[in-house]
């Protein structure tokens, strides 16, 4: 065994983790301001590198180890991983769900590696340091956006709301919330230099200011919950004068932010039950095993609740596995804190408190916001939860170790490097290729905005299967063909989309428009009916449906669709006139005239109203 090489691979995996912790919050692609695609690429390639560095370390040592005391924390993660893979294997639309599935698998891998490799206060100190360093940069960029110094054109995308390097104010806000326990834990660290503690206090102020400039409910709730969790766990696991001071600081943060924008708490939460009931209906179709990992991204459902998202994708069985995983982690942390206090392990107690606060705060806040499920900051839960688990193992020093030995000598193991490196390079190729596809997609969208349809179609065509935007690219391609007045080509593109993700966006409506252009009325009516089943409040769909049914000669269906359009938009005279035309076809002249009068009256009223 070469101790030098073993150490090299450990250092490599550690460096990769630190680079990920620093780069993921900050990475955005300057040319197109793509905050998601670049993060996905960094995440996928970085986690792959992390996993391979861990594998190579095992290869060098001739074994992989699992301490007996880590079994209770590793088993639920292995069970969750196995269930995710199994559920994906039997999911009907794998291509559309691939990215969601990969994200879940790679997050669980990160958890496992952090659990086995990065326990210990020193590791936590380093990771916290890099994340808060990223928080400084992101928060300063947020400040510059607030002051109007952002030089880029995207500064106006969210009005006056700041979004920094995240491309979305809510994702940025959730990241700021996560940084509260991290910063306060550093402040509490007995080994922290005094001037860095002042730097931490300054960062807390900057975090609070940014969260107010975001002006959004769910990050605000996350910030308050995270501060409250910090105020509970720091004095509980680190009972000292300093621990209580840190709790006081976090309570001040929670109170000042909550009081400043308290009105959001009452107004904003009312929208959640409506979204939740739609997701509950979706869950009821397959309650125990769910619809497969990544399946929610195929539709328009956004549950804004981690438990409901897990139930929808992995079923209640998946939720049970989550509870098992984080329940075991909570229990291990509770037991470890007592041991650390007995041993007088100050550094370990401090970081155990911070990591517990982060995990507890995250899990509470994630039930009230979709932003927690975004790759960034959602990914941060996994390495930090793994480190929490790894830290609890130190409370059971000297426990037996289960090993998976490699039945090969050193020379034979070294020969395995070449195929292993090739496998790594092969897998590394996919994230890079998908990133290239994301760029093509971005360029295609820019072409669409410039109405350059042939160029848009060419770029949409270069988006490869498996890329995050592959499904959207097929939709965009169909729409571009439709705009170019090529309905048959549009229908072909939508057919490809339907095979991958049957109910994406408003594909059935678009199909209906294409069929109407071809005067294929039976298919147009069928597509409108399917769209109405998915989006019952989509007015344009009923307008088109009424027209198509009228042309088909099904006047009853046309009348029903036109009436539905009027019901949804009672003040739109065009809907009244459409129904009047149907009445005329039905020889109901009096009803038609009445509607025409109503439409004329509506138009007059609208003209009288002041414009703008």
């Amino acid at each position, binding site marked *: 065994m070469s101790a030098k090489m073993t150490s090299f691979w450990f250092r490599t995996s550690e460096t990769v983790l630190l680079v990920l912790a620093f780069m993921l919050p900050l990475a955005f692609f300057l040319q197109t301001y793509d905050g998601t695609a670049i993060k996905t690429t960094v995440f996928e390639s970085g986690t792959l590198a992390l996993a391979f560095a861990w594998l190579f370390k095992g290869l060098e040592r001739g074994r992989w180890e699992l301490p007996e005391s880590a079994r209770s924390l590793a088993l639920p993660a292995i069970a969750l991983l196995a269930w995710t893979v199994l559920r994906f294997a039997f999911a009907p639309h794998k291509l559309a769900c691939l990215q969601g599935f990969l994200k879940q698998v790679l997050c669980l891998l990160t958890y496992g590696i952090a659990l086995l490799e990065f326990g210990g206060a020193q590791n936590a100190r380093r990771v916290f340091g890099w994340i808060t360093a990223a928080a400084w940069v992101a928060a300063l960029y947020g400040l510059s956006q607030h002051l109007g110094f952002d030089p880029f054109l995207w500064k106006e995308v969210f009005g006056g709301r700041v979004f920094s390097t995240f491309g979305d104010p809510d994702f940025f806000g959730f990241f700021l919330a996560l940084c509260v326990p991290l910063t306060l834990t550093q402040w509490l660290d007995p080994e922290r230099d005094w001037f860095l503690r002042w730097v931490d206090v300054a960062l807390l102020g900057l975090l609070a200011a940014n969260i107010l400039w975001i002006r959004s409910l769910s990050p605000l709730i996350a910030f308050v919950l995270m501060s409250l969790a910090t105020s509970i766990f720091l004095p509980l696991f680190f009972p000292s004068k300093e621990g209580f001071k840190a709790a006081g600081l976090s309570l001040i943060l929670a109170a000042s932010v909550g009081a400043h924008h308290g009105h959001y708490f009452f107004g904003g939460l009312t929208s959640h039950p409506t979204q939740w009931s739609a997701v509950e209906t979706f869950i009821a179709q397959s309650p125990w095993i769910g619809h497969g990992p990544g399946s929610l991204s195929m539709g328009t459902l956004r549950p804004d609740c981690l438990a409901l998202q897990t139930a929808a994708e992995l079923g209640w069985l998946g939720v049970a596995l989550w509870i098992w995983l984080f329940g075991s982690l909570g229990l291990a942390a509770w037991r470890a804190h007592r041991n650390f206090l007995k041993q007088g392990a100050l550094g370990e107690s401090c970081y155990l408190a911070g990591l517990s606060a982060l995990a507890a705060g995250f899990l509470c806040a994630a039930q009230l916001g979709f932003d927690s499920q975004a790759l960034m900051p959602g990914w941060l839960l996994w390495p930090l939860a793994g480190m929490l688990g790894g830290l609890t193992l130190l409370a059971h020093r000297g426990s037996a170790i289960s090993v998976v030995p490699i039945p090969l000598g050193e020379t034979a193991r070294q020969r395995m490097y070449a195929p292993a490196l090739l496998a790594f390079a092969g897998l590394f190729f996919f994230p890079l290729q998908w990133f290239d596809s994301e760029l093509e997609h971005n360029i295609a969208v820019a072409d*669409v905005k410039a109405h350059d349809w042939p160029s848009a179609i060419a770029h949409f065509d270069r988006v490869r299967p498996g890329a995050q935007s592959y499904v959207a690219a097929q939709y965009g391609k169909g729409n571009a063909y439709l705009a170019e007045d090529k309905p048959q080509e549009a229908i072909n593109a939508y057919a490809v989309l339907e095979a991958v993700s049957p109910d994406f966006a408003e594909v059935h409506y678009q199909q209906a428009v294409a069929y109407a252009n071809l005067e294929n009325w039976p298919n147009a009516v069928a597509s409108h009916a399917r769209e109405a089943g998915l989006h019952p409040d989509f007015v344009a769909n009923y307008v088109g449906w009424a027209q198509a049914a009228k042309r088909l000669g099904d006047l009853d269906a046309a009348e029903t669709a036109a009436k539905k359009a009027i019901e949804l938009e009672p003040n739109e005279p065009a809907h009244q006139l459409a129904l009047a035309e149907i009445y005329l076809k039905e020889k109901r002249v009096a009803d038609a005239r009445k509607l025409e009068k109503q439409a004329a009256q509506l138009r007059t009223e609208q003209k009288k109203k002041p414009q703008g």
Partner: protein
Amino acid sequence: MNCETVRNIEDLYIEGRLTVSRKEQVEAHLKDCAACSEKAKRANPLSGLHGVKAPQALKERMKKLLANLETAAPVNKSKTFSVDSEFWPVAASIAISLILALLLAWAGPGVTSQGYEKAAIPSEVTP
């Protein structure tokens, strides 16, 4: 269990950190394989020292050394450039902030990127 497998885990066996079942497998192999058994004995620096007591002089020397360590002034060794240092994250954040600030100062408001006025989201693709 073959010889290579045993050699890959023999340090854990010597330290007594293997699980009971794995330890029994190793012991069963060592019983049958003279080469591995000999190697394991040589690898364990404390083998054959059961019951041997440390000389009094060594114990006294160790105590003195420990006492000196406790009273000695902390070594003023700079950790600035070690991997463990808190210097790196701080330096990296300062460097990136400076780059960002320079970019802001150099570019000023109004620089176009790729002509995007809105975030590129699929729903906007509808012509």
